[in-house]
C-alpha cells in the first residue's frame, strides 16, 4: 500500500497522518469559554485499508440482502413526535417493501402499525408521510375500519355476515416495535430487537448538549436521487470533496475547503454512530505560503462574504473597524452569537460549535447536527440505483416560544433542486453510481485511511448486519 510523503517521512502508522494546519482539538485549546466534554470525546480507530466492494452500491443481490438482513431488524427513524402532535394524528413511514402507520393514540403514546388491511392486504393509509388527523383507519377497498389504537372498529354491516370466523377482539392491526428518543420516533420490524437506547448508545449523552425535543422542523424536502442510498449519504460523511465539488464554499484563501476536518468513530468502530467536524474558516493550510489572519479578514470583507456552516454569510463593515488580534472564526462566531438562540444546553457556546459544521451519523441512515441541518437517506424500493434523500431544518426556538406546526414533506421533482451546494452533491453521486458500473472488475474502491473513515465504518457495520454477525 502506497504511503503518503508525510507517513514515509515520520514513519507514522497508517491512519495517523493528518492534513497540514491546525486541527479541531487545537482550536478547542484556544476557546475562551468552557469546552463541552462532547467536543473532546474524539475517538478514531484505523480500520484497515482493504478495498471497498463496489457491489455494495450497484448489486441487486446486495440490495436484497440489505432488505432481508438490515432493514428488517434495525432501528430506523420513522418520524418526529412533532409530526403527529395531537391524539389521532398519523403519518405513514415507508421503507423498501414495508409500510407503517405511526399514530398518536394518547397524549403521550405513539404506536406503529403495519399499514396493511387484514382482509385483502390493501394499504390502509396512502397519504405518504402526510400528517393527518383521522378518527379511524378505514380500508378504501371494502370498508373494514380500525380505531386509531389499532383495535377493530367495524366490519360494515352489509358484509359482516360473511366473517363469522373473525374474533373481533383479536382482529386488531398488528403493531411494530416503536420507541422514542429526544423527539425522534423509531421503529424496528424485529420483535426481538434490543431496546432503542441500547442501540443508540452514547450519542444520546452527546446530544444532551444540543437537544432535539424542543426544536421545530421548519422545512422538510425530499427528492428521488439517481444513486444508491449509501452514496447519497456518504456525500456527507467526508468533507475533503468540498475543494473540488463545492469551490464556492472554500472561497480559496479562507479554508472551509474540508481540510482539517476531524473524523470520529467510537468503540473501535463498533458504535452505531460517528461524527465529523469541519474546520471553520482559517488560513488555508494548503496554500504554498502562510497567510496571515489579517489578510484573511481583508479577503472576507473584500469578497463581502464568508462561509460558515455550509452557507455563505454576507459580511458588513470593514476590516479597519476590528480590534487587534481578531480572527475570521472569532468574527463569525460573534456574528452567530448575535443571531439568537442556538439551543445549546450547559454553558456558553464555543466558537467551534458556532462556526464549524458538526455532523453526526446514526447507523444506518440519519444525520443529526448540533446545528439545524438534518438528513435521512432511504432506499427507493429495491432499486439499488435510486434513493430518497431528505433534508430537514431542525431549528431551535427562543425559550418559551410556541412551536409552529412541523413542516410537511415537500417532494422535489426531477428538475427541482435542494439548493446550489446540495445540487452539486446530487449530480456528483449520480455520476459515481454510473462510474461504479463502468469500472473494470473487480473494481474495489480505495479509501483514505483517515478522511474516509466514516465511509469505512458504515460499510463495516453494514457487512456485519448483512452477514448476521450482529
Amino acid at each position, binding site marked *: 500500500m502506497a504511503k503518503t510523503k508525510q507517513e514515509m517521512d515520520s514513519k507514522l502508522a497508517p491512519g495517523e497522518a493528518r492534513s497540514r494546519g491546525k486541527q479541531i482539538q487545537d482550536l478547542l485549546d484556544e476557546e475562551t469559554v468552557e469546552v463541552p466534554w462532547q467536543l473532546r470525546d474524539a475517538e478514531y480507530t484505523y480500520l484497515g485499508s482493504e478495498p471497498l466492494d463496489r457491489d455494495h452500491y450497484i448489486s441487486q443481490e446486495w440490495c436484497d440482502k440489505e432488505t432481508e438482513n438490515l432493514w428488517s431488524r434495525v432501528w430506523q427513524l420513522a418520524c418526529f413526535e412533532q409530526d403527529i402532535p395531537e391524539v389521532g394524528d398519523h403519518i405513514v413511514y415507508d421503507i423498501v417493501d414495508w409500510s407503517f402507520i405511526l399514530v398518536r393514540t394518547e397524549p403521550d403514546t405513539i404506536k406503529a402499525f403495519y399499514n396493511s388491511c387484514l382482509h385483502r392486504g390493501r394499504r390502509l393509509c396512502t397519504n405518504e408521510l402526510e400528517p393527518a388527523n383521522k378518527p379511524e383507519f378505514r380500508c378504501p377497498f371494502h370498508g373494514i375500519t380500525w380505531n386509531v389504537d389499532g383495535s377493530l372498529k367495524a366490519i360494515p354491516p352489509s358484509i359482516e355476515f360473511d366473517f363469522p370466523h373473525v374474533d373481533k377482539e383479536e382482529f386488531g392491526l398488528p403493531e411494530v416495535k416503536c420507541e422514542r428518543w429526544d423527539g425522534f420516533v423509531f421503529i424496528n420490524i424485529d420483535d426481538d430487537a434490543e431496546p432503542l437506547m441500547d442501540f443508540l448508545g452514547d450519542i444520546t449523552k452527546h446530544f444532551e448538549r444540543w437537544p432535539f425535543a424542543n426544536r421545530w422542523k421548519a422545512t422538510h424536502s425530499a427528492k428521488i436521487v439517481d444513486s444508491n442510498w449509501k452514496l447519497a449519504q456518504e456525500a456527507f460523511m467526508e468533507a475533503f470533496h468540498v475543494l473540488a465539488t463545492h469551490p464556492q464554499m472554500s*472561497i480559496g484563501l479562507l479554508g472551509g*475547503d474540508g481540510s482539517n476536518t476531524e473524523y470520529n468513530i467510537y468503540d473501535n468502530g463498533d458504535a452505531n454512530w460517528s461524527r465529523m467536524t469541519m474546520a471553520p474558516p482559517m488560513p488555508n493550510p494548503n496554500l504554498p505560503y502562510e497567510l496571515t489572519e489579517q489578510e484573511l479578514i*481583508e479577503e472576507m470583507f473584500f469578497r463581502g462574504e464568508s462561509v460558515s456552516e455550509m452557507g455563505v454569510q454576507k459580511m458588513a463593515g470593514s476590516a479597519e473597524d476590528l480590534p487587534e488580534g481578531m480572527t475570521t472564526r472569532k468574527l463569525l462566531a460573534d456574528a452567530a452569537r448575535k443571531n439568537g438562540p442556538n439551543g445549546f444546553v450547559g454553558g456558553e457556546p464555543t466558537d467551534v460549535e458556532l462556526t464549524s459544521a458538526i455532523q453526526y451519523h446514526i447507523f444506518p441512515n440519519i444525520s443529526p447536527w448540533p446545528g439545524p441541518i438534518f438528513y435521512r437517506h432511504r432506499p427507493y424500493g429495491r432499486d439499488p440505483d435510486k434513493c430518497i434523500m431528505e433534508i430537514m431544518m431542525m431549528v431551535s426556538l427562543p425559550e418559551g416560544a410556541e412551536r409552529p406546526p412541523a413542516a410537511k414533506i415537500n417532494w422535489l421533482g426531477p428538475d427541482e433542486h435542494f439548493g446550489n451546494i446540495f445540487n452539486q452533491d446530487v449530480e456528483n453521486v449520480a455520476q459515481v453510481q454510473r462510474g461504479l458500473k463502468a469500472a473494470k472488475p473487480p473494481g474495489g474502491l480505495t479509501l483514505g485511511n483517515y478522511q474516509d473513515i466514516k465511509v469505512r465504518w458504515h460499510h463495516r457495520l453494514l457487512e456485519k448486519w448483512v452477514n448476521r454477525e450482529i
Partner: protein
Amino acid sequence: MIQVEPTGVSFETKEDETIMAAAIRNGYTWPTICGGQGTCKTCVFLTLEGKGNLTEIEPWEAQALESIVDTLPNRGQGWRLACQAKAIGDVRVKKIGVRQA
C-alpha cells in the same frame, strides 16, 4: 506591467506567461492550491483597470468562474483567474495575499 492592490506590488509579465506565473517568477506570492490548473479557483482576482489588456476568457476559465460566481461581488464582472489570464498591456488588479515571497 501588473500592479496588485492593496499591497501595491508590481511586476512585468513575459509574452505568453500567466499573471500568476509572472508574479511567482518575480519573487511574489500568489494564492493557489492546485498550482495553476484552473481547478481550485483560489487565484481569482478583480480587475480594477485595464480589462481590455487581458487575454480573452477561454471556455475552461469561463466554466471555472461560473462555478464560483455566487461568491464573487458584482456577479463576477471583472473577475479572472490569475493562472489562466495573460496580460498584453498594463493592468491594475486587486488580490489579497500577494506580497514578497
